[in-house]
């Protein structure tokens, strides 16, 4: 029985999700700075407890204490908490968003808490303090 040859495989057989991940990083983070921010092997990485300032392309900078770092590829995000006139305010910052220009660490704590997700500090005596610039 005659059997015809298959068409050549695209991408040389590279798994598609691998290619998509690389292409998205290349597009959203060409210099690799943002990837470094959440890389676990980087001692200068963002950690829960750090006080940071996020600079946007089209709006004012946002300050706050990190209470969560979510690592999931290009969907990675950090959760900032701050007190404004005594009221707790939280902002979720997707760090690979093209509108996020850079993230500066203002201050690091003397010692880090033993968890990554600090949801338990909300409205307790451990809660974040108002950031005075």
């Amino acid at each position: 029985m005659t059997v015809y040859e298959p068409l050549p495989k695209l991408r040389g057989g590279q798994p598609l999700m691998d290619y998509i991940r690389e292409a998205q990083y290349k597009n959203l983070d060409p210099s690799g700075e943002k990837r470094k921010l959440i890389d676990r092997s980087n001692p200068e990485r963002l950690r829960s407890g750090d006080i940071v300032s996020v600079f946007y392309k089209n709006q004012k900078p946002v300050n706050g204490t990190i209470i969560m770092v979510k690592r999931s590829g290009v969907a990675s995000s950090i959760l900032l908490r701050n007190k404004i006139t005594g009221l707790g305010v939280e902002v979720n910052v997707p760090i690979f968003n093209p509108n996020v220009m850079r993230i500066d660490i203002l201050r690091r704590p003397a010692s880090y808490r033993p968890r990554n997700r600090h949801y338990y500090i909300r409205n307790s005596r451990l809660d974040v303090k108002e950031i005075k610039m």
Partner: protein
Amino acid sequence: MYSLIFRRLNSTAALPAVSSRQLISPMAIPALKSVAPLPFKSPEAKRQRKRLLDRPGLIGVKRGMTQFYSRNGDRVPATVLEIDQVEVVYNKTLDKNGYYAVQVGYGHKLKNQTKAMLGHYRNAKVSPKETLAEFEVKDENGLVPVGSQLKADHFKPGQFVDVISKSKGKGFSGVMKRWNFSGLPATHGTSLAHRSAGSTGMNTTPARVLPGKKMAGHLGDEWNTIFNLEVLDVNAEKGYILVKGCVSGSNGSYVEIRDALKKYGSHILQDK
């Protein structure tokens, strides 16, 4: 009134098949041949009532989910569908099959192919395929030459598609999971029946369970269509399309992608 009688007389006289010897009442109405209407349930009548598309769709493979940033920085969830080695294997026509359709194949697989299927692929001059799917089109203009390759740029970013795939199988499931029943109370004497369905009907009348009663049974692993998903990104060179939102089935399952039927489909009868 006069004109009506006159026309009847005239028409009788003009009948070509009637010989001159025959005696026909001048008031007789001549036989008129009319086309018999299609039976309502006939396949052709059903086809004409259907909403159909102008062109076939594609077969893809669900590879996973990611997120996509739109121009203004909005994050949207996206499903990655791989389009690779998609070829047209067969065209169905009205004369031969009773409807117009394009049979499309995905991938390459040589193992466990029957001789009959190998002959089918040989006739189309394409390699043996992993899976086949059929897309019904409105008329012969929608047919695609057999053996031609379909790429991801069949669709354009911004348009809407329907994605048809098999949902994940959940096995034999109870009514709480399958039909969102509330179950029975947690306390007040409920014994070993917290997730039960409760009553399934009345007593002596009708003395049976009515057909269609929602009960426990097999859940999932059935064909599901998700309508009107937006196409976010298309790359024919690398062979993928991104659609907004989720698609039924696990990663690695085959999906059929077609133009959104409710937006771009039309009826044959309305066109006439």
